[in-house]
């Protein structure tokens, strides 16, 4: 067990930012913390790292209690903050060297680590640049390089891809998986469900400071009743047809809007087949038909009654 959080409570005055949050992160995992803006992800990270005082709860990292002066634990953690934290007066190389130097004293070793980090995030051609001269995506990459250069056992990334172009985003996600393959345990927060689905082996969805579901993405999708979402493009459907469709077994919901028929069906095989049979029988004219499996957004929607992203 790398991280164990138990009943964490954090208040900002009246606001309850973390409400008895508990979870564990196992060795070798990429653990995702998924939640909408303001759900408490950053607050949770800051409490775990003892950057914030919390009202209640326990945090253990590497089996030891985490405290502000637990320097031996901090030495093994790499952190990439949501707000880019680099020195504008230092070049790309000097920034990475500075942060790496807080963990690694040996100069020769450090030089190697810094070079590796620069290559890893693809900033080789920008070594001498000052942060002000870097694009948003490159700046994020620098922020990541500063966090991971010392080869930590545990890497915590708080929304490292906010406002990043697709190319940089792809590179960052690939890089995180690579670090994980090399042995690091990763905690990754985001409000992009696609990212979390793509790289996380286990996911915790949080809302208003509460954990609402935890598991692998398949486990999470299995928690809800929705099995499949089928969309039929059609010029005309009568209310009678819609009612008959709703009466079919497995069909949980059917909605006709903007010339699109959306059918949500429960778990089980042959859902699509049943819908196709129905269309043929009713002689409905149709354009395209496609079927989607549920997303984490559907999971969030079904549990909280609202969209993950507004």
């Amino acid at each position, binding site marked *: 067990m790398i991280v164990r959080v138990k009943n964490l409570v954090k208040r900002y005055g009246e606001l309850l930012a973390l409400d008895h949050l508990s979870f564990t992160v196992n060795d070798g995992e990429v653990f995702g913390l998924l939640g909408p803006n303001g759900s408490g992800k950053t607050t949770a990270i*800051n409490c775990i790292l003892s950057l914030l005082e919390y009202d209640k709860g326990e945090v253990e990292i590497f089996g030891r209690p985490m405290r502000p002066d637990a320097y*031996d634990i901090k030495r093994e953690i790499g952190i990439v903050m949501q707000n880019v934290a680099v020195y504008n007066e230092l070049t790309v190389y000097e920034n990475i060297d*500075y942060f790496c130097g807080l963990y690694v004293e040996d100069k020769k070793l450090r030089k190697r680590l810094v070079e590796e980090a620069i290559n890893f995030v693809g900033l080789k051609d920008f070594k001498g640049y000052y942060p002000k001269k870097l694009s948003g995506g490159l700046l994020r990459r620098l922020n990541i390089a500063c966090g991971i250069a010392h080869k930590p056992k545990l890497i915590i990334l708080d929304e490292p891809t906010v406002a990043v172009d697709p190319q940089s985003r792809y590179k960052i996600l690939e890089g995180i998986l690579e670090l994980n393959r090399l042995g690091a345990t990763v905690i990754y927060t985001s409000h992009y469900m696609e990212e979390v689905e793509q790289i996380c082996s286990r996911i915790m969805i949080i809302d208003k400071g509460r954990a609402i579901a935890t598991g692998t993405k398949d486990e999470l999708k299995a928690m809800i009743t929705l099995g499949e979402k089928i969309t039929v493009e059609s010029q005309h459907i009568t209310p009678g047809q819609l009612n008959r469709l709703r009466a079919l077994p497995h069909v949980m919901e059917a909605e006709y809007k903007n010339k699109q028929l959306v059918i949500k069906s429960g778990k089980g095989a042959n859902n699509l087949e049943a819908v196709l049979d129905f269309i043929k029988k009713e002689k409905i004219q149709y354009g395209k038909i496609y079927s989607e499996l549920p997303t984490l957004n559907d999971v969030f929607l079904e549990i909280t009654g609202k969209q993950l992203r507004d």
Partner: protein
Amino acid sequence: MQVFKLCLRVLKKNIPSLLIYVVIFLAISLIMALAHTNEQEDALFSPSKSNIAFLSAEETPLVRGLKEELGKVANFVELPDDAEALQDALFFREVSYILRVPEGFSERFMNGEQVQLEKTIVPDSFSNAYLDLKIDQYLNSARLYVEQIEDLSQESLVQYLKSDLSADTPVELKTNGVKAADHVYTNYYFNYLAYSMLAVLILGTSALMLVYHDQDLQRRNACSPLSPGSFNRQFFLAILVFTGLTWFLMVIFCFLFNFKNLVNINAVFFVANSFVFAVCAAGISFLVGNMVKSESSIPAVCNVLTLGLAFISGVFVPAELLGSSVLKVASFTPTYWYVAANNRIAALASFNYASLQPVFSAMLIQAGFALAFIAIALVLGKKRRLE
């Protein structure tokens, strides 16, 4: 020493803006040094008569005698007795000395009371020192006669004085004249330092403190295995080194321009005083650095503060030309005491406790300011970190 190195890099990035102040300072100092060499030669080879405004509220034999005596070494300029006209005359150097004899002076003097003449001068002029000497001589000798001879009339007193004073004047001229001239340039240089050094220190220290107070960076550093104590120590060490280095460099230049006038005890006091001021300036800079919130406001704050302090404390304009209310305000600033100490040091001819005492107290006051600034800054800094 990662953090210390970081601070040096931050300072290095700020060198261009610091250098502007240093270069202007050195250029002006150099020009003054060149101008001063000429002036000095004049003073040595043709001791010219200085211009004096002699305003007397009474016409007595004693006052007439004094005026006659001064006439040997000064030209009298007629000026209306009006504060503004007198200030202008001083400012445009029509006169370098204004002497005022108050009503009832002669009578009280003859009665053996302690009475004073009022003077207003352009500072640092060697001819003024000579005039002071002349006046002191006249009055001191007169006092001796008054004390020794009962019922002495003013007319006979003036007769005695006339024969006495004609004897020994020329000897005094040479020794005093040369000595006083020596520290004029040094005095200017060190006074002007109060502006330039403070500007450089404020700019550099604020840049450091801005980095120090950046909340995102503070959080990021707090994630590392470096203790906050070690972090702070390295930061303050960097500020100290920066202050020391700035002071050292700016003082060293004076020796390059003006070496022959600096091999004396006065120079030791100039340097010591500037060091105390540097510590105080570091305190001011530390305080300013704890208060500025954005990079763009630093130059403005720096200019207002350094120029303002320098003006009211008599760095650019001699203190004698400033109104007394301005000087009263200025005395609540360390710059005023620094300049006052410099001016005293320039006039030092002997180094006994009595003559050094005002210099020491001015330095102590500056040190007190330094402590106060640092204390306030620490309190503010703590508050800011807790926000």
